[in-house]
């Protein structure tokens, strides 16, 4: 856990004071709604369909039990007793009163939290690998890099009014769990042959209405030059990014219009002036930041625990949980545990105040009082002794937090959608629930294996549907809610070595009631074609292409596997294929390598 020093705390306190005054002026009529809007957005406050929504930063997804208890308290006092963890490692409250927001921010500041730059056209909360610091494949600890970038981006004077929002992701491990290819800037730690640490710099990736896989503009950036190089990229973007059309304002459009090569040249030319300047990082600063992180005091433990092995053998439900929700740790005798917030019937990412308090207690008892938030909207206890796994599982079960579905189809990522979000074309939460209800047989789920299913309620893509192995997007068709399906998207490497890809649309949209059937037919098609249990859904799509899946989704004769529900769907599919195309007017999906 990073611990603020006096200046970090003072800056956050002063931001609370500033926002309190801005809110006061707005409520007193001295600051118009239009002028207040960018100010409140820079502090994470949206005015949504039902009530304001306050997004609180969880920098790089790292959270202490004390902070989680404070979030629970805020959920009780100012909200309706729950909170929502987002896909960007943040937490959202959906029901606070505008006038109470300064008070909430003051309470957050007491536990070293804030809502700075969680929205608005500025550099947002930097995200990273939820296994930072513990992953066996780690090159550098990305938390330290993230905190350095957090401080650099916090209230940056030059980049508070960019053309559009700006998201940075950092990974410090060999396997990219931070989706660096679909961020405005992705940084991948790399180690040169001589042992020097630096970053591969990826620019211009992103989801939203024009999903694009980012481009590497520099293979190796020495770590000391990190901030001057970020300044150079941001300056080129701030000056030249489009401001005439908000749908073309992200950096990915600038990179595309300039071409990645030309854009890289412009950045290098700008950097030539900044390189070696005062923002160049020093060993002392990196050491200082690193030293402000507390680190678990691990015990020396044997790598294997006999009691654990016995419990796994004796209790199949526990074994299923260990298989899905327990992850490798670089320290012998320890493991990381995912707490699934994806129980069927609960909106993905939602937790009640009672659950937050209970999880905080478990973090204290089992994991050094720390937690992480994953971009899959789950919580992670990162440092659990293997011998404690069974006890932890027993404690999680009655809380409804032991669903063994990490990486499986029912671990659905879904944005708040039409139930909460003013921008939505369609609801996403009921769709997630219907799919979870259809795939409620755990053995079947485990047999299907790893499958990322992501749902967004509109083209803004907060549910990251483009990188779902199956992606579902809410579209509006004459005022009705329809859903477009993509397959083959992914983030993180697949079998063929691709780092990330945008899913391909399989055809016309579906009505909400059809979605569980369609997903089932896609899954059936995969099961019929996979070369072995080791070939995941997304790898099969990569090998055999979209066509077989398309035929499976829309027509019954295309694939050989028998699906019990298929016959009944024939008439529906035929009728819908004959009907109007639901996705006309929705911008095309484009794949840029």
């Amino acid at each position, binding site marked *: 856990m990073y611990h603020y*020093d006096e*200046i970090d705390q003072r800056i956050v306190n002063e931001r609370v004071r500033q926002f309190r005054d801005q809110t006061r002026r707005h409520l007193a009529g001295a600051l118009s709604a239009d002028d207040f809007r960018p100010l409140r957005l820079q502090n994470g406050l949206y005015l949504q369909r039902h009530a304001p929504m306050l997004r609180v930063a969880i920098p790089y997804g790292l959270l202490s039990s004390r902070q989680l208890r404070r979030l629970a308290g805020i959920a009780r006092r100012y909200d309706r007793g729950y909170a929502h963890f987002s896909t960007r490692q943040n937490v959202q409250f959906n029901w606070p009163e505008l006038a109470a927001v300064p008070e909430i921010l003051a309470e957050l500041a007491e536990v070293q939290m804030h809502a700075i730059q969680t929205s608005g056209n500025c550099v947002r909360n930097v995200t990273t690998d939820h296994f930072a610091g513990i992953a066996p494949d780690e090159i550098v600890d990305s938390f330290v890099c993230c905190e350095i970038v957090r401080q650099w981006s916090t*209230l940056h004077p030059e*980049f*508070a009014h960019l053309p559009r929002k700006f998201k940075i992701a950092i990974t410090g491990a060999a396997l990219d769990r931070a989706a660096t290819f679909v961020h405005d800037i992705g940084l991948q730690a790399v180690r040169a042959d001589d042992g020097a640490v630096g970053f591969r710099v990826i620019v211009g990736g992103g989801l939203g209405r024009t999903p694009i896989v980012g481009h590497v503009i520099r293979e190796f950036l020495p770590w000391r030059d990190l901030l001057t190089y970020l300044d150079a990229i941001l300056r080129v973007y701030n000056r030249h990014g489009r401001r005439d059309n908000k749908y073309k304002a992200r950096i990915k459009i600038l990179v595309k219009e300039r071409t990645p090569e030309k854009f890289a040249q412009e950045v290098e030319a700008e950097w030539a002036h900044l390189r070696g300047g005062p923002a160049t990082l020093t060993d002392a600063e990196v050491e200082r930041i690193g*030293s402000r992180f507390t680190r678990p005091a691990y015990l020396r433990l044997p790598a294997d625990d006999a009691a654990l092995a016995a419990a796994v053998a004796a209790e199949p439900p526990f074994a299923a949980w260990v298989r899905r929700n327990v992850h490798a740790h670089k320290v012998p005798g320890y493991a990381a545990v995912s707490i699934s917030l994806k129980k069927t019937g609960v909106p993905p990412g939602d937790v009640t105040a009672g659950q937050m308090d209970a999880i905080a207690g478990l973090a204290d008892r089992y994991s050094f009082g720390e937690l992480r938030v994953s971009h899959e909207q789950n919580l992670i206890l990162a440092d659990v002794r293997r011998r404690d796994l069974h006890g932890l599982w027993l404690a999680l079960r009655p809380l409804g937090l032991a669903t063994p579905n990490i990486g499986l189809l029912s671990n659905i990522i879904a944005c708040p959608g039409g139930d909460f979000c003013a921008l939505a074309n369609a609801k996403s939460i009921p769709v997630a629930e219907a799919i979870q209800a259809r795939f409620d047989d755990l053995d079947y789920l485990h047999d299907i294996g790893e499958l990322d299913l992501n749902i967004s309620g509109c083209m803004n893509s907060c549910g990251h549907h483009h990188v779902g192995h199956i992606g579902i997007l809410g579209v509006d068709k004459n005022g009705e809610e329809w859903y477009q399906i993509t397959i083959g998207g992914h983030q993180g490497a697949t079998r063929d070595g691709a780092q990330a890809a945008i899913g391909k649309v399989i055809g016309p949209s579906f009505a909400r009631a059809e979605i569980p059937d369609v997903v089932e037919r896609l899954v059936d098609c995969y099961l019929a074609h996979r070369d072995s249990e080791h070939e995941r859904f997304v790898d099969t799509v990569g090998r055999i292409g979209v066509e077989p899946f398309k035929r499976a989704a829309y027509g019954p004769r295309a694939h050989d596997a028998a699906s019990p529900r298929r016959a009944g769907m024939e008439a529906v599919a035929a009728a819908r294929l004959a009907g109007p195309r639901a996705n006309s007017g929705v911008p095309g999906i484009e794949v840029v390598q």
Partner: protein
Amino acid sequence: MSALIRERRVIADRWVFAGTSAELPAQGDVLVPLALWSAERDGLALRPGRIGVLLGPADDPAALVHDLPQLALVAVDFPQATDGRGYSTARLLRERYGYTGELRAVGDVGRDQLFNLARVGFDAFALRDGEDVAGALAAFADFSEAYQASVERPQPLFRRRTNGASSAIAARNRRSSLAALPHEFNFRRPDPIG
């Protein structure tokens, strides 16, 4: 009439804006857009009174590199407060092109922008109509510190920190970090195993 703040005080504005050569007053200090300056530089330099140039958000300040010693004022227009290009323009003028004269933010300039505008090198602010001047003057103190290097504080916070202020946690960890850190720093947090 909007207020002008310079060096943290409200002052009278002596500058007259002329958008075209027909609007140029016979004498006195005049502010002209970049296009007019570029077209009639020589004539303008000869007229009595000082010259200032107004840059729009898309104007490249590099166009003024050779003229800056002649200019008593550079104004940067913010058509909307949310158009942040002028912040980069200001830093380039101050940090790259060495401009030391008056740098004025004009347009949609309110109190909530002043703190950052001052940090990137503006020293004069033509407030938009109706802005509360007392509140605006107070806004320069919205924050007492900032992390980044800027025109106002050329060194970033991490180069200005005094090392003595660390908390007990940092002190405790520093001991282990010194023992654990290899020479080539690798971003690893101190790891107290063993």
